[in-house]
């Protein structure tokens, strides 16, 4: 099939970017979206032009590296997948596809479609861990039984891949879904309860410092999240935050 592409090109963080048009003639429907971009890049290299830079690594939806806005939607039209799992069979012959980077003040563009998401790392560094030593001799793993449905809930929250689609989808560029997923995982588990108060306060403080916007409950993040991280986590984080404030 024939596909018309409109792709954001930007030399580096300080340059201004613009949309550039490309046309691809022989796209196959069982190609993945990123393989379609590989084909475009091979063409560009052959012509001596610089290929389009985009972030990707695992190409199976788990590392969270890929991060494209496709026709205004993070990770493209299909639900519950990352863009590396998107296949060209989701498009039709003659379609025009607009590809842009994830946009947010806290995610500056590095080049073309690549953004800097280290703000997410700093939020995790502020408290996204349980303070146990890795070199000690901790208690036996089965010493504290955890109810299956609680463990499953913690697991659901823990599956966040840190891609940033929630931020890109949000009109306020809020990082609440991402932050609350980690806060929830640890708040649910007995091992994480001990530091729950400091954790939520520190992570939320860092989130604000990084320049992410406020949450106004539009729910766009949940819709676009490739891992189905639920808004319940934001509610849980808000409860944790409020009770932390009460505890002082």
């Amino acid at each position, binding site marked *: 099939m024939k596909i018309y592409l409109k792709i954001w090109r930007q030399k*580096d963080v300080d340059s201004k970017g613009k949309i550039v048009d490309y046309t691809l003639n022989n796209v*196959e429907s*069982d190609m*993945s979206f*990123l*393989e379609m971009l590989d*084909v475009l890049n*091979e063409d*560009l*290299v*052959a012509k*001596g032009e*610089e*290929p389009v*830079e985009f*972030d990707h*690594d*695992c*190409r*199976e939806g*788990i*590392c*969270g*590296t890929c991060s494209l806005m496709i026709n205004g939607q993070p990770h493209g039209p299909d639900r519950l*997948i990352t863009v590396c*799992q998107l*296949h060209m069979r989701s498009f039709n012959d003659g379609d025009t596809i607009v590809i842009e980077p994830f946009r947010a003040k806290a995610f500056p563009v*590095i*080049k073309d479609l690549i953004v*800097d*998401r*280290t703000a997410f*790392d700093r939020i*995790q*560094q502020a408290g996204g*861990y*349980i*303070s146990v*030593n*890795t*070199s000690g*001799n*901790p*208690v*036996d*793993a*089965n010493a504290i*039984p955890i109810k*299956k449905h609680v*463990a*499953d809930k*913690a*697991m659901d929250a*823990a*599956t966040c891949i*840190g891609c940033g689609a929630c931020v890109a989808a949000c009109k306020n560029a809020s990082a609440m879904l991402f932050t609350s997923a980690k806060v929830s*995982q*640890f708040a649910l*588990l007995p*091992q994480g309860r001990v530091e729950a108060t400091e954790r939520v306060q520190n992570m939320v403080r860092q989130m604000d410092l990084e320049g992410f916007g406020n949450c106004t409950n539009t729910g766009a993040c949940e819709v676009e999240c490739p891992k189905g991280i639920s808004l319940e986590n934001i509610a849980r984080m808000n409860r944790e935050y409020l009770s932390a404030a009460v505890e002082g």
Partner: protein
Amino acid sequence: MGVLDSKIPSGPLADKWAKHKNEIDLVNPANKRNIDVIVVGTGLAGGSAAATLAELGYNVKTFCYQDSPRRAHSIAAQGGVNAAKNYQGDGDSVYRLFYDTVKGGDYRSREANVYRLAEVSSNIIDQCVAQGVPFAREYGGLLDNRSFGGVLVSRTFYAKGQTGQQLLLGAYAAMNRQIQRGKIKSYTRHEMLDLVLVDGKARGIIARDLVTGEIERHSAHAVVLASGGYGNLFFLSTYAMGANVTAAWKAHKRGAFFANPCFTQIHPTCIPVSGDHQSKLTLMSESLRNDGRIWVPKRLEDAQAIREGKLKPTQLKEEDRDYYLERRYPAFGNLVPRDVASRAAKERCDAGHGVNKTGEAVYLDFEAAIMRYGKEKAFTSGIKDPDKETTRRLGKEIVEAKYGNLFQMYEKIVDQNPYETPMMIYPAVHYTMGGLWVDYNLQTTIPGCYCAGEANFSDHGANRLGASALMQGLADGYFVLPYTIGDYLSDDIRTGAIPTDAPEFEATEKAVREKIEKLMSGKGLHSVDYYHKKLGKIMWNKCGMSRNEKDLKEAIAEIAELRKDFWENVKITGNPDDKNQELEKAGRVADFLELGELFAKDALHRNESCGGHFREEYQTPEGEALRDDKNFKYAAAWEYVGEPKDSKLHKEELTYENIEVKTRSYK
């Protein structure tokens, strides 16, 4: 004693590690503050090592090429992690895990290392639970287990189909805690391009900042390489796109011996290749073999009809199907080790029984499991005489709870519903048992250069059992390396910071710059991917699932030729002082083009079949691997002396005192 000293502690097997730990020189906490360690790689091995080293008091610098340590390739591991906890009470023990691993590795691994691995395995689970890793649990609240190939007990811990992700996020969290304390400095989007030796010791690295293109010098008292495996040599594999051998290969060229490069794991259950544009292959976790049955049509006509789309697999009667693993290996059935399962699939497809367009696919079928689970569920829910529909629905729910994300992944890629029609699978390159040679302390042949995780050769011999890579990465990083490295660093308490303006840093940086310039000055005929794909074809066709002398000799010549062509004609756009993904890829492919030659040479010299290395000349009449313990019971450690094909062989003879060396049988 030869050049290779494995430094295995004396004494009975079960006491070696405890004894060694007691005898190791320690660095006191005050002195650790004056010692710097570089860790290249933030996967399970590097991430856990960095966190523990920092916690012990060393100053750590970590490097990864991704934008965050959390994205290392370990994140993609699906199935699980082994540990000899014996929570299921099915007779598991440290010895049994040790035994299974040595046997699974076809008696080509080092006894003492494997025993230590089995010994610390159960600590890993304690550690991870304390860190908040949400492993799967049973209704009673205790941890759940599943079985993996090549073993008869249930010792695999898992977190849905995302075990690697959860373990890595645990290690990443431990790293974050140390970053927050100022004990780890994390360099992301940085690629190590060379190792710096001062007075014969590893004292630093040269790295490229992948965003600015800047070439940087970083010094330390020791360098730990935890840079993962080299399977991307084959172009198509289950590895992440950026996985590479550069860090290990550069260390090899500076004096670290490379062991058993030809020991590569081809995983039996991956989604088959669909076309020329394909950029990577996707694994369907081995855990699926717990419940999936593997088969091909018995009759060639049926296979052909299926390939042509005239017949559906679900239309084929039970008696017209060949469950070839159950037929050939009744004791282990669908749970034979990976090398055995892969070869058996290839054998059936080569004989014309393949089931997709290209003839290179077999079925992995869940219908029997769905019905079995459905019946059980109906029974426990008190539903009497359920109809087929109800049973299917109930069974489907259970299968979905177990493997839902894998089924979804499959459906997205293949556009078929695996609950309704069997999955199609085929073997693909997945793991490399070979890697930098290390001694018992995980030190390479370069003093001060250590190697952990998949990048080293240590524990899996000629074949790795499922769920043992995660175990090894975390064992190395949390429990072994942070202690063994102290023995070496105890000599460095008065050394002081290593200056980066030493002539050795200058010279190594110059060499790196020249190499980049040379890459950029190619004539510009073909793209980097063009060469990578060509190399991959040579590797897959001539050094893949089965090998022979003629092919291997051809491969050596063809790779050398391709390498020459690459250096003259590769085309790299853009410039080196910017973010430049073509240049990044080119550097990696340049190293693969050297490794490939050594790989083929290693495979050619090993005149036997063992584990993942199958030489057509050495097989039994039934087509099983024929090992030669008299001549090849050793690890082959290669020393770089110029062209890879001229590399010098050093042998580490393997001795088995605690296990009887037998012909592996899964029948």
